[in-house]
């Protein structure tokens, strides 16, 4: 489930963001409690809490006192625009670098994309 590349709390936050983007977590829907999350993924609850706190800081989740944490109404749209901004730098650029290394021209790439 988790890897050694980055702190688990960031991986937790990313996982929840992906669930929101993918639509499996809806806006204003309640997310698991940190204890449920910790028990399910067998991690320390403080780590889970840190991941959730990060999402609250970013405005992706909001807290309702004594009830739990919920997906912010505008979370999906905010995440989408943030990811769209990073799409060319993080997805397209590395692809072009690799294409250049192995000698694939931009024409070949556009041809491939059009044919799909």
């Amino acid at each position, binding site marked *: 489930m988790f890897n*050694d*590349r980055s*702190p*688990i709390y960031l991986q937790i936050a990313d996982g929840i963001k992906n669930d929101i983007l993918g639509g499996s977590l809806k806006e204003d829907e309640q997310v698991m409690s940190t204890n449920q999350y910790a028990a399910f993924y*067998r991690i*320390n*609850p403080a780590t889970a809490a840190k991941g959730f706190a990060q999402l609250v800081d970013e405005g992706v989740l909001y807290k309702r006192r004594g009830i739990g944490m919920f997906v912010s109404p505008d979370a999906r749209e905010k995440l989408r625009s943030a990811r769209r901004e990073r799409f060319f730098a993080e997805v397209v650029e590395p692809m072009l670098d690799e294409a250049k290394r192995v000698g694939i021209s931009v024409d070949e790439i556009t041809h491939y994309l059009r044919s799909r």
Partner: protein
Amino acid sequence: MIEMRGVTVRYGATVAVDSVDLSLPDNKIYGLLGRNGSGKTSLLSALASYRRPASGTVLVDGEPAFENPRVMRQTSFIRDTLDLNDSDRVSAILDIAARLRPTWDAAYAAKLVEVFELDARKRVSALSRGQRSMLGVILGLASRTRLTILDESYLGMDAVARTLFYRELLADYLAHPRTIVLSTHLIGEVAELFERVIIMDRGRILLQDETDALRGRGVTVTGPVEAVAAFAAGHPVLGEQTLGATRAVTLDGRFGPDEIARGESAGLTFGPLGIQDLFVHLTSQPLEASR
């Protein structure tokens, strides 16, 4: 809060724990890591007030802990030797624990006996190494003491039993938060349970940090000799290997995605350094280099 102030443990001329200062805020799970002979068990004996330090003090909420009955009732220290009477039956040992420990949860102990499939009618002498460890875990967890210390309590347990142990430990901690200190070499399989790790080396605390902060710390870099050297400049090198024109180095520190991307475009490949590997690198360094 449990504090160690300048604690030194000596065996004759050997210094096992060398003037250690350590603060353990309450209700966290701590992992104590260290190689054989690094002083883990000695440190834990002092922490549990089983042993009076040669110098220094252990304070629990500011009160000296040694020979303090209030503190001792709320401390359970499970050593691998278990300190049990070999001819006693498991059931009798659990009964004794119930009488000695005001916080003992007999129903929970019975549940753990079932989870581990221990035969409570057996005598301690008839238990396998792994079953002795399970009994230790039961004594430690069912005591529900404010401070529970489990010193290499997985010894002899197979992978299934260890998984059950970690699962029970976490579930019971979630239901009854308390301070748990677990010493281990098997960092990879338990690191996710620890809120903080304490790494000991040669009687001293080498590092104490959030476990999660250690994930993503350190990286392995492989590529052409010059490119690796250029990237590594200014970073602490934990290990290195060269094969022909290819060099692989292990670097300490944190590396941002931009730095990694620049390295990759210079022909380098990067790999993460797991907590286990970080531990091995940090504790196999000459003393000066690791500080």
